[in-house]
């Protein structure tokens, strides 16, 4: 019994010992596991932190700097990188009557504050300011406040006058190229010009850091607008338009429509001013079409001999009479017809050419569709709608009547005439060298070479002499078309559209320049004349010497296109 007890006790003691050992082993294992787990957790945490540092962390920090640098709306720059439109956080003057927390919103009397504000903002209306201060409603008192003005307001010590900085659109060049740029309306979206075209890119955060580059050259634009406005004032015209176009790439270096508007003041941009005369308004551009007709005839082979003479007696057709402005002699050859700008002879050349071929040329030059350009407002030409043009239509179109196109159509057509015969769409975006659109061939290269000579002759001997800037080898054609009356009425005798379409330098044409004056008067500055030779041509004659050297064209008196084979065809020289 005792032994049994002992043995059981011994046995139970052993068992207990074994149990203790097992238990402590288990505890140790559990603890070890816990410690290992802890370490593993720490390691995982470290790895996670490393991953976070490496992948997640830098992104928001970098983007915060990126965002801070990002303009609220992308910049628009010219071809040389000069800023034309940029987001500019300007001060505004905000009236917050609740700033003092009840009682009178202003420390001084409203009348006193209104008087001081009127002295800070000379263009403000003191009575209006006083009314708004007394009314006690929060609102803008002024926008686009200069830093100096903000400082002076700050010195007043009025807590109710706050000047928050708000993103604003600023155009450092003022009204220059306003029609190309457009403006930003109160809703933050662009209107009219490239602001509207590029609206998506300019507002998209991923794209707006990169400025949008235009093909414009601001120096050229400045010279063109300056000379056009001088010409407009000198001749008392109601409007003016001008384009400078690169003949090889279709890039527009300057585009002006006057009177213009200031995009910094969108509230004053009324429709009359915003309307773009270069791309939106269609005109019968008159005699500037004659070189196109002659080129078409040379290209088609109906003029094989430039010495061939055509009768200059008026043409009676379908009850109309095609006449010239003055008597130019009994007969003229094609160069003389261009130099003296004869409607009759051009009509005869077109008659010989045939309506179908002239129409095909006009269509190839894009005269039957809206001009090719990025701008939203593009006018639809008035193109004779008949399937087959009547004889009279053919004849009038040949000298630029009965067809109305925009000045931009004309610029593209002249670029085609002189660049070797390739028509290209115009563009307002800078084209990298060698990446110009291929375009389509309208004239043979030989025709184009002949047209360069003929256009140069007009500037040397004919109506374009006032555009013949010394050393720049300018060639071009005048056009003075009477404007039709309202609702397609008869032509108005005293209202003309005077155009000069030119290209230079003619020995290797690089740029087309179009200057157009709307309803110029016969002022003393234009020697009492209303025709393009006296008003539009001198504008081109002044623009070319200003822009030529900027565009890398060196004036050279010792160089010119060879006219020796054509000079004998005009025995009497010019004598217009």
């Amino acid at each position, binding site marked *: 019994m005792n032994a049994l007890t002992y043995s059981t006790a011994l046995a139970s003691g052993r068992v207990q010992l074994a149990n203790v050992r097992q238990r402590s082993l288990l505890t140790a294992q559990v603890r070890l596991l816990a410690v290992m787990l802890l370490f593993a957790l720490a390691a995982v945490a470290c790895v996670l932190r490393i991953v976070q540092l490496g992948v997640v962390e830098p992104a928001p920090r970098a983007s915060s*700097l990126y965002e801070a640098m990002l303009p609220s709306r992308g910049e628009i720059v010219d071809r040389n990188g000069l800023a034309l439109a940029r987001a500019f956080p300007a001060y505004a003057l905000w009236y917050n009557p609740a700033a003092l927390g009840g009682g009178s919103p202003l420390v001084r009397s409203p009348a006193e504050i209104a008087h001081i504000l009127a002295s800070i903002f000379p263009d403000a209306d003191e009575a209006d300011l006083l009314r708004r201060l007394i009314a006690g409603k929060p609102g803008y008192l002024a926008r686009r406040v200069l830093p100096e003005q903000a400082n002076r307001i700050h010195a007043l010590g009025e807590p109710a006058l706050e000047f928050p900085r708000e993103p604003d659109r600023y155009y*450092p060049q*003022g009204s220059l190229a306003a029609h190309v740029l457009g403006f930003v309306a109160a809703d933050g979206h662009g209107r009219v010009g490239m602001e509207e075209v590029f609206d998506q890119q300019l507002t998209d955060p991923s794209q707006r850091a990169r400025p949008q580059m235009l093909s414009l050259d601001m*120096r050229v634009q*400045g010279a063109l607008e300056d000379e056009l406005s001088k010409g407009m004032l000198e001749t008392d015209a109601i409007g003016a338009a001008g384009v400078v176009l690169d003949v090889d790439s279709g890039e527009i270096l300057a585009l002006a429509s006057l009177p213009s508007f200031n995009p910094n003041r969108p509230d004053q941009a009324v429709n009359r001013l915003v309307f773009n005369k270069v791309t939106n308004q269609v005109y019968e551009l008159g005699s500037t079409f004659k070189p196109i007709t002659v080129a078409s005839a040379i290209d088609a082979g109906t003029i094989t001999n430039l010495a061939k003479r055509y009768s200059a007696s008026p043409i009676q057709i379908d009850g109309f009479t095609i006449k010239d402005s003055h008597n130019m002699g009994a007969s003229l050859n094609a160069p003389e017809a261009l130099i003296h700008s004869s409607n009759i002879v051009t009509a005869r050349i077109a008659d010989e050419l045939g309506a179908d071929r002239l129409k095909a040329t006009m269509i190839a030059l894009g005269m039957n569709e809206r001009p090719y350009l990025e701008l939203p407002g593009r006018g639809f030409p008035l193109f004779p709608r008949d399937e087959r043009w009547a004889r009279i239509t053919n004849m009038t179109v040949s000298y630029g009547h009965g067809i109305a196109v925009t000045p931009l159509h004309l610029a593209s057509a002249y670029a085609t005439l002189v660049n070797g015969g390739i028509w290209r769409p115009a563009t307002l975006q800078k084209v990298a060298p060698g990446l110009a659109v291929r375009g389509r061939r309208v004239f043979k290269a030989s025709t184009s070479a002949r047209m360069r000579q003929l256009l140069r002759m007009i500037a040397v001997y004919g109506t374009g002499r006032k555009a013949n800037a010394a050393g720049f080898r300018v060639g071009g054609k005048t056009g003075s078309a009477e404007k039709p009356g309202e609702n397609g009425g008869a032509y108005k005798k005293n209202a003309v559209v005077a155009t000069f379409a030119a290209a230079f330098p003619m020995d290797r044409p690089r740029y087309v320049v179009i200057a157009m004056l709307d309803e110029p008067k016969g002022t003393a500055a234009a020697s009492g004349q209303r025709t393009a030779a006296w008003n539009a041509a001198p504008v081109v004659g002044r623009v070319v010497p*200003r822009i030529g050297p900027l565009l890398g064209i060196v004036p050279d008196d010792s160089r010119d296109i060879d006219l020796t084979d054509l000079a004998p065809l005009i025995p009497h020289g010019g004598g217009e």
Partner: protein
Amino acid sequence: MIASRTSLRRIGWAALLAVCSAALFALSLRVNALKSEVRRSENRIVALRQETMYLETEYETRSNQQLLSAWNAVDFGYVAPNAGQYLENVRQLAALGKPAGPGAPSPIRVATAQIEVPGVIPAMVSPLTGKPLGDDNDEPEAASADHDKAAAGLDDRLGKVERDPPTKSPAAEKANKPASKAAKP
């Protein structure tokens, strides 16, 4: 003994842990300091960019094409260069220096004042007085040295590399002395 070794080890581990965590703490402090420095520099970059943008915009506004042409019309009257102002190549440039042909109009000569001291070429001439500029000692020498005496000292001067006033030559020195006295008052 065993217990003490174990506790020693434990203390050792604890000390190591303490050192490591102290180092980690110091490191994280450094990291945070650097981070805030980076953030400060970023803010500064943004502020400077803004400043640059304001100044650039102001400059562009003040130099806008319309303003420039208005100023030019009123104040300066600059015109675009004409063909005569360009030289196309070196031949045209060389043609400017070729001798006049028979019957050609004689070239315009520019009048020049006689240089007083042919021996000493002054480094700089005053645009107002036409006198050589230099320190006080040089000027009277240059003004007084006469042609023959300067020529007498020429050998001496040409023999040296550095420019040396003609004081070495006894003849020149003699000539200089009364002159410098006369010039002092």
